[in-house]
Structures are given as structure tokens and as C-alpha cells.
């Protein structure tokens, strides 16, 4: 099968790969590049575990073809704490027990990050709406919502 060259920025560093046409970004990230922080929970766009940020927007990497990401800027949860210091969302997920088995967590954090990037001080309803594409079977969602609201509150205090 013909390979397609694809080049993008992942968490600040340049990546180049040859992929089979039709390869998903999820597969390319996990199995080719070795960033396993996006998870495959359904491979059909229904669980959100594979969520990543492409050019500032939340995307399901299982439904995104790698070849369409040429030149894109991609962020995943593994790139959030580069310097070893946890991102406020990561800290909040720890402190509010928003992670149990942890399988949904990287996708949840991506969804929360996009929300806060666009809306630094969201209402509870906006948080629920923003996370509504991400399934968590363990926590019952409430601690996750609290984690995001905790960061939002400290955002608004910092702004004040």
C-alpha cells in the first residue's frame, strides 16, 4: 500500500512519519510515534478517550486521518507537564480524585483544556457540556467537573 508522508508538531517537537493511507491519527500517535497518552476506547468516535488538540480545537484522533494533519500543531496530555511541573488541570484532577482507573483521564484533560483555553471562567453547565463527549465509567463525573471548576476559579482569581 502506498505510504503517505506526514509532518506535524506534537507537543512542541517536529514529527515526520510515513503512514498507510487511511491510518488514523490515534494509530499514528500511539503505534508509530510512541505517544500512548491518547487511548482507544471505541475507535468509533463515541468515548472521547482518544481526544487530542489540533490547531487549538478538540478532536477525536480515532476519527481523524493522520494524512489530514500535515502541518498541524497537535497537543496531547503527555505534553502538558514537560518541565515536570504538573499543569493546573493535572494538579486539580489529582487533588479532587477525578481519576480512578485513569483510562478516560488524558482525553478528559484535553477536553477540559480546550474549554478553559476558550472560556477561562466557565459555568458548571459549560463544563458539563464541554465534557459531554467523554465517557467515564468510574468516577460518576462529579469529581471531574469539580476539578475543572477548581482551575476555572483560580483562573478568575488570578485575573482579578
Amino acid at each position, binding site marked *: 500500500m502506498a505510504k503517505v508522508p506526514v509532518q506535524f508538531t506534537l507537543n512542541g517537537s517536529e514529527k515526520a512519519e510515513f503512514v498507510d493511507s487511511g491510518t488514523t491519527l490515534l494509530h499514528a500517535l*500511539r*503505534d508509530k510515534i*510512541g*505517544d*500512548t*497518552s*491518547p*487511548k*482507544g*476506547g*471505541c*475507535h*468509533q468516535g*463515541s*468515548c472521547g*478517550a482518544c481526544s487530542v488538540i489540533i490547531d487549538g480545537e478538540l478532536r477525536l484522533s480515532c476519527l481523524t486521518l493522520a494524512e489530514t494533519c500535515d502541518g498541524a500543531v497537535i497537543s*496531547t*496530555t*503527555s505534553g*502538558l*507537564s514537560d518541565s515536570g511541573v*504538573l499543569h493546573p*488541570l*493535572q494538579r486539580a*484532577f*489529582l487533588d479532587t*480524585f477525578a*481519576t*480512578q*482507573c*485513569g*483510562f*478516560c*483521564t*488524558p482525553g478528559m*484533560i484535553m477536553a477540559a483544556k480546550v474549554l478553559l483555553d476558550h472560556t477561562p471562567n466557565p459555568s458548571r453547565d459549560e463544563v458539563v457540556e464541554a465534557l459531554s463527549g467523554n*465517557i*467515564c*465509567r*468510574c468516577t460518576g463525573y462529579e469529581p471531574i467537573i469539580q476539578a475543572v471548576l477548581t482551575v476555572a476559579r483560580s483562573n478568575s482569581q488570578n485575573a482579578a
Partner: protein
Amino acid sequence: MELRKNYFADVRRDDLHEIGQPRPRSDSPGHVTGKTAFFADRNFPGMLHLKMVRSPHHHARIRSIDTSEAEKHPGVVKILTAKDVPHNVYTILILIQIGPEDETVLADGKVRWKGEAVVAVLAETERAAQEAAAKVKVDYEVLPAVFDMQEALKPGAPLVNEYHGQNYYLYDSGECRKVRFGDVEAGFTGADHVLEQSYQSSPIEHAPTETTGCVVAPEGNDRFTCYTNTQAMFFTLDNTSIILQMPGSKLHFVGGTVGGGFGGKVDVIVEPIAILGAKLTGRPVCFIYSREEEMQISSPRAAEKVVIKDGVMKDGRIVARKVTGYTDAGAYSRHSPYGAQKGAGHYPGPYTIPNVWIDTYCVYTNRTPSSAMRGFGVTIGDFALEVQMDKLARLIGMDPLEFRFINAYRDGDMKAHRQPTEGAALIECMQEASRAANWPVAEKYMAMSSYVKGA
């Protein structure tokens, strides 16, 4: 968090330093940074992908299997059928002497539920394995199937599983697990009211976010490392050792990181065949359930039917309870004989009843095999029992919470299965619940105790 000091004040210690203190989980830093290694995060060069050919029928004889077209499919490396599995007929609870072996790793001559594994295809890519699996031709003779437990127990019903010889699990106590305590019929005769009700539930899927699977790497020293999300590590290792007729010393299981289990990842279902594939090809193998397989193939909580007959006095005492419980095992035992047995011990509930009669059946049908899930064998029973308790209270015109105080077990009470009650705290829990829910009960109930005699 508020710690109430008014309960058990004289028997408890107050120098606890963990309870009430938040402690960080040791695994959550890995979860929030994406560093936690789930089994599917392991990748090995040259790894093969395993896909299952599954039965489209609920019950059928296999006339023939033709893999010739599939073998020619580009990328296919190996195709496995029943004859490749060293010890193909197994049952997981054999480790605790609960037989007979009644399930095949790969179907041999017959399928007993829709979705049963028949042929395993190993290929270079997931796509090649999937496409080749679609080319395997299995010729089936469809047999009559039975999906309802009551139907399955009738004489002349289609026989689901020949290894049992009848559509129920044969316990050492006979066709069901039995508890006999006091004289239940005399209890009903002397009761002011008798109420019989039946309750039933459907199968429930755990639906973990991470699907069931494993990744196997052959090591240079003839050992196999299996990265798995099983919730039952040693149980899986020992059963794999039996199925593959391979000493446990050849098997190295790595796990403990489970992307949601809820009891649904305790069947030994992916590891043996993936390790066999790795052994026969000399290549790493991954076998990961698709979301569809997780929902349709992995075992659910059993469907249950519970028939409860209670004799109750006007003053609120339950004097007799007769329960017949049915657990739908599906086509194979897995953990269900144990689940049905747990029900037998559990059906009296946390109540002291002088006359008890319990029969619990583990029934085979042509449905997806059921197995463990959070409190299996007792959760549906609790639903049935507590709805029944509310109905009984209404029948005699009593407050449902006060009714439970009257019947609550206390330290020293003999339970129906003849274990004396120890460490009971039901009364204290109900006292606190009464306050928290603002559901007041009469003062005499608030003065009761689980452990002070005469209170």
C-alpha cells in the same frame, strides 16, 4: 468529612490516623500525565494482531470449517482452530474444584451462544486479520435454542451444554443450592399474612472504557510475557497453564493496571489463545476486543429471577421466608455456579428470620455466558429483598424503616446458614440514615443497639 463518635463509643479506638484523612492515590500521577502503561500501550516490533471468527448462531452444530481462502489473504500468518489448543475444554473455577470443564477455547463441533469463538486469525495488521476472518467459511447446522430459564428447566428443552447433561448446574446438594432452617411451612401457617412476589432482571454489561485484551511477547528463554488487563492475575495464569499445558514458570504475567473492570475482566478469555498464537508463530501478539466485542461478547452480570414468599406478623416480625432464585449462566459456567451459591447464603438478608427455605438454581441457556460483576449473586437479590420488605411493611401498615429495625439482625443471632452474627451494625446505620434522610422513627428504635443485649 464528619466522624460521628456516638456509635460504638465504648468499643472503638480513637487513635486512627488514616480514616478521615485524604491520601493521594499512588497511581494517579501516572494517570494525569498519560504515563500509566495500560496493556495496549505496549508495542513490539513485528507484533501480530489476533481476530476471532465468531458464531452467528445461538446454537448450532459445526459441520465443517474451511480456512483455505483466509490463509491466502495477504498478511495472514497463522490460523488456529480447536485442534491447536492443547487442553481445549476448560472451566475457570476448576482451580477451586468447581467442575466439570464445560467450555471450549475454540469451538469444537458445536457452538452454544451467538458470538462464541470458533477460529482465531493472526495477521500482520489488524485490518488483514479482520478481512481474513471474514473469509473463513464455517458450515453450521442450526439447532433449536433456549433463552428463558424457566423454559430451559422444562423436560424436553434443548440441551445447552452436554458437559453438564442437564440445563442446570449439579451441586453436591443436587439440582440447586439449598438452605434449610427451622420449619418454613409451619411459619407460613402461623403467620398473619403471607406475601409471594417474583422479581427479575436482565443481563448488565460492565462497559469498561478500556476493552478486554492482552499483548504477549515471546522471550528468548522460551518464556512468554503477557501484558494483560485481567482483574484476576494468578487465576488467569493458572488457568492458562492448564489450557496450554505449559508450566506456570514459562508464563510471566504483567498487569494490575485495568482501565475499568467492575468484575468484568475476570474470565480467562484472551490470554490463553494469544499466548498460543505467540508460541506457534514466535512473534508478539495482541488480542484486543473491539468496542462491539466488549459489549456483545464479554460476559455480563447474569439475568436473575427471584421468587420470595414471606410470612409476617401484624407486630412486624417476619416469621418465615422461602426464596427460589434462578441465575442465568448463559451457555457456560464461568463464575455463575458460585454466584448462585452466594445468593443462597444471602437471601435471608440482614434480618433474623426463624424459618427459612432457600433454593438457588444456576441455569444454562443459549445466551452470552454471564460471570462476575460487582457483588454478583447478591446485588439483584438485594434489590428484590428490599422491594419485598417495603411491600411487607405496606401490607401490615407499618413504617418501612421501623419494620426493618424490628427484623434487623444483631450480634449473636443465628443466621439461616448457621453462622452466628458478629460485628453487626445495621441498626446503627439505620439510626444514622433516619437522621440523615430526615425520616424519623419512634424513640424505641433509636434506643436499639446491634450489640448491647436487650437494647
